């Protein structure tokens, strides 16, 4: 055995994983879940097979890994005729680099005969040279700093290093490695690339460990902490920002493009191994979803690299904390992590804001585990943001056809911001500093930012547009908006909330499917408003949102908002244990045919059974257990991502279709019919799991994740009084009264 690249000490890695297995630690359970899928269904989990071969060194595992690589090689030529490889080559470059790395691992293990090794090496190198060296040379140096160029430069540098006995490899290495430092250094010091949480977490973040470790092995020195030119970015600041994008509700901030997603883990594992900050370990050990999977850098090996980078050191527990980055935004978090507010003012892309959206002082709120506001992208049917001035047609993205699309969802009108004169397609037309943070106080949990410039570009009489947010008494938020002009203007304060709107005397009140309410009440400023349901925005979560516009007209327009969250449900019983599980290999069983007998295994309903034990990796599973339902109104909370879920209570099927989209991101809470309250109920569930990384119904190999519980209602008295008097905000709810000093923003 030589040295598999990136694994300095294979024996140490094997020992770490064996120890974790012996100890029954989370790392050990994740290791087991990976190995089980890899060994029981290698054809469904090809990305796991090289790692399994490396860890076990067993002949069968090595053969599986070789087959995965042979399979990949067979796709290369047909891929050439797709618009993906031709126009979006970076998506292919990053996985090509990792398949090449896995091939190299197997070479180091002596897995190939000489002829096959030579043939594959030449094939991988040639494909790299004609596609991704070509792709890298298309991206302007040094101007292009994004996930695409990072993928291309990394792939050239890595292959170049791995196969450096050839001249082509050396040529690719030289150009790739030269550009890598400036791709990290080209990211602002905030660590935020501007491309949105999805690209940050799924491409930029996962590439950081690969790049840092490659640079350290080839150029020496510490490349994790080093601040690099041209903008002073560092790998550490990128990791820190990615960790900050994790919200206490289990999702990433729906920042800029794409919207809410479930966080990935390998970048966090790497940061935990390199940093003393205990928050990384907190995310890794307690917050991460280990059943979910999605391609990182267009390959399904996030779990593999999480295991490789995962440190054994025990860190003290950390909690979510408020943060600020003057260039991009700030978050205010309550001590118990239940209340979360993020205010953003990151720069948007001028002219075509498709990735870095126009979101000057837009807000994201979350309370008691439930996201309350939305952002993201629209589904194909949604036309609400197809503004007249935001159409674009391009011919460089597809073969044989042009693509016409509307980028309105990236503009101001699709965000929770102040709109002036109803310019919904609000965006910058050139580069300039669009916003500035005015104040942030960790102690006061307060943040204020000025976003005047992006409004002033079109409306020269704009004197000031600012928003200040505060988390008060660890219980509610105050949000103040101020817009001042030389002339009179129509001003809207636009908010995008999750459904559903419920009746309220003042302002608006919504209640999410998780039973969390939010009342938004204008304490100062008019309550004149319109409300519209936007179907298809966002395309994720509920698949719709409430667009609320509060309106006023004048030279000085001000609102002071009370945002009051309340949980209306609480956990009554943990029902995660003791579920009988039956596989349905054909996926065709009817409930009457499912044999819940002595042969059925009993598992906790927290992750798919085949992740917990050596069971068949099949798509469809049935589950059953009895539950005592409380006498009061009750809900059954189930894990998220139980695909195509069906539920029977005492043999009668419930309609759970309303949860279908939402449960990709959130644990569904299913109302128990009143007639079953206070009774022992037999619950049968049928769902599909992510049984394959590439099957069209395989969900990327990601399974369900969560903890079934029974919930019951709890008091939510709402806001009885909210007023501003003598510099003081007074809020009364139930038997509680809050008084908060609040100095209004002035000009």
């Amino acid at each position, binding site marked *: 055995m030589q040295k598999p690249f990136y694994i300095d000490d294979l024996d140490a890695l094997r020992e770490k994983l064996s120890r974790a297995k012996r100890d029954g630690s989370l790392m050990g359970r994740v290791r087991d879940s990976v190995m089980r899928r890899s060994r029981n269904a290698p054809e469904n989990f090809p990305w796991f097979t090289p790692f399994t071969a490396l860890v076990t060194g067993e002949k069968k595992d090595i053969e599986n890994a070789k087959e995965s690589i042979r399979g990949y090689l067979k796709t290369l030529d047909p891929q050439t005729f797709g618009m993906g490889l031709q126009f979006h080559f970076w998506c292919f470059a990053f996985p090509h680099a990792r398949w090449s790395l896995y091939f190299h691992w197997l070479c180091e293990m002596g897995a190939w005969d000489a002829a096959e090794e030579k043939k594959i090496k030449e094939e991988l190198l*040639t494909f790299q040279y004609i596609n991704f060296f070509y792709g890298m040379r298309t991206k302007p140096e040094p101007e292009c700093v994004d996930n695409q160029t990072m993928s291309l430069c990394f792939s050239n540098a890595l292959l170049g290093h791995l196969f450096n006995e050839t001249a082509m490899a050396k040529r690719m290495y030289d150009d790739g490695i030269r550009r890598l430092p400036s791709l990290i250094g080209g990211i602002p010091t905030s660590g935020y690339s501007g491309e949105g949480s999805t690209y940050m977490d799924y491409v930029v973040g996962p590439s950081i460990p690969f790049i840092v470790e490659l640079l350290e092995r080839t150029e020496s020195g510490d490349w994790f902490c080093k601040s690099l030119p041209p903008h002073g970015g560092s790998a550490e600041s990128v990791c820190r920002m990615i960790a900050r994008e994790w919200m206490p509700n289990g999702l990433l901030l729906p920042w800029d493009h794409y919207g809410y997603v479930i966080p990935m883990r390998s970048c966090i594992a790497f940061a935990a191994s390199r940093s003393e900050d205990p928050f990384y370990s907190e995310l890794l050990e307690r917050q991460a979803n280990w059943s979910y999977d999605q391609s990182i850098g267009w390959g399904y090996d996030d779990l593999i690299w999480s295991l490789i980078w995962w440190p054994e050191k025990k860190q003290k527990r950390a909690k979510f904390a408020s943060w600020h980055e003057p260039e991009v935004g700030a978050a205010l978090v309550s001590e118990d992590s239940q209340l979360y507010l993020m205010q953003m003012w990151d720069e948007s892309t001028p002219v075509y804001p498709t990735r870095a959206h126009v979101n000057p002082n837009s807000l994201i709120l979350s309370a008691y585990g439930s996201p309350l506001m939305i952002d993201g992208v629209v589904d194909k049917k949604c036309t609400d943001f197809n503004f007249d001035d935001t159409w674009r047609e391009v011919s*460089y993205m597809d073969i044989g056809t042009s693509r016409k699309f509307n980028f309105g969802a990236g503009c101001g009108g699709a965000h929770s911001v102040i709109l002036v004169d109803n310019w919904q397609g609000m965006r910058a037309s050139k580069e300039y500093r669009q916003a500035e943070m005015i104040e942030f106080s960790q102690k006061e949990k307060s943040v204020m930012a000025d976003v005047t410039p992006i409004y002033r570009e079109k409306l020269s009489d704009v004197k000031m547009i600012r928003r200040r947010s505060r988390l008060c008494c660890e219980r509610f938020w105050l949000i103040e908006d101020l817009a001042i002009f030389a002339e009179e203007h129509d001003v809207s304060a636009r908010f995008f909330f999750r459904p559903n709107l419920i009746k309220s005397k003042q302002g608006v009140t919504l209640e999410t499917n998780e039973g969390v309410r939010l009342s938004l009440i204008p304490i100062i400023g008019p309550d004149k408003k319109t409300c519209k349901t936007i179907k298809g925005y966002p395309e994720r979560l509920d698949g719709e949102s409430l667009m609320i516009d509060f309106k006023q007209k004048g030279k000085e327009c001000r609102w002071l908002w009370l945002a009051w969250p309340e949980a209306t449900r609480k956990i009554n019983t943990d029902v995660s244990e003791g579920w009988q599980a039956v596989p349905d290999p054909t996926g065709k069983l009817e409930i009457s045919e499912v044999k819940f007998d002595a042969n059925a295994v009993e598992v906790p309903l927290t992750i798919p059974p085949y992740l917990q034990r050596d069971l068949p990796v099949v798509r469809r599973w049935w589950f059953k257990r009895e539950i005592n339902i409380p006498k009061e109104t009750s809900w059954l909370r189930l894990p998220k991502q139980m695909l195509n879920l069906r539920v029977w209570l005492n043999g009668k099927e419930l309609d759970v279709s309303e949860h279908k989209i939402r449960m990709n991101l959130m644990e569904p809470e299913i109302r128990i019919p009143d007639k079953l309250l206070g009774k022992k109920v037999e619950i049968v569930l049928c769902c599909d799991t992510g049984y394959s990384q*590439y099957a069209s119904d395989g969900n990327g190999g990601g399974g369900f994740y969560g903890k079934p519980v029974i919930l019951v209602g709890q008091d939510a008295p709402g806001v009885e009084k909210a007023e501003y008097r003598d510099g003081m905000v007074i809020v009364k709810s139930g038997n509680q009264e809050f008084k908060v000093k609040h100095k209004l923003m002035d000009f």
Partner: protein
Amino acid sequence: MNSTFDMMEYCAANATKKDDASFKKILTCLSDDNWRVRYAAAIALGDRKDPNAVDALVQVLDNEDKAPLFSQPKLEGGAHAGSNVPFSVIFPKGTTEATKEAWRRRGRLIQAACLALGNIGKTSPKALEKLHRYTTDQKCDYSVRAASCKALGQLASPESLPILEKATKDEEWCTSCEARKAVKKILK
């Protein structure tokens, strides 16, 4: 040196040499039947910066202009990036292997030749004419347009200014970015 890989390797291995023998051999590779070898040769000639390669590179562009590089229709079939699941694509009836090869390479060889011309830094009227045309030709992939803008910036000929200024308005970012840089270089 028989295989395609060996010939590509030869070009790369001799990309920084100065001797005549290897130069001639790379020029031979530039007219090889296999475009991968021609591509590797063009890159190597750019790295060698030998002005004697300009005419041969222009000849490559002439040949590429006659090939059906960008004529591929959208084809049925496809797979995820990085996938190892077998799949095939369905070609229109009568598609020849030569056409498939053209569709495989699209703008790769043109890009390599354009960048090589830019690197060499000496040009000919015919080379300039080609580069000017690629700069704004929307029938070419953006990799070609961006490469020709970059090359024109390196060649820094004032007569390229009008076409480059037009290219600064290209819808595609890499192209407009390279065009802006090229304009700056020429005006410097």
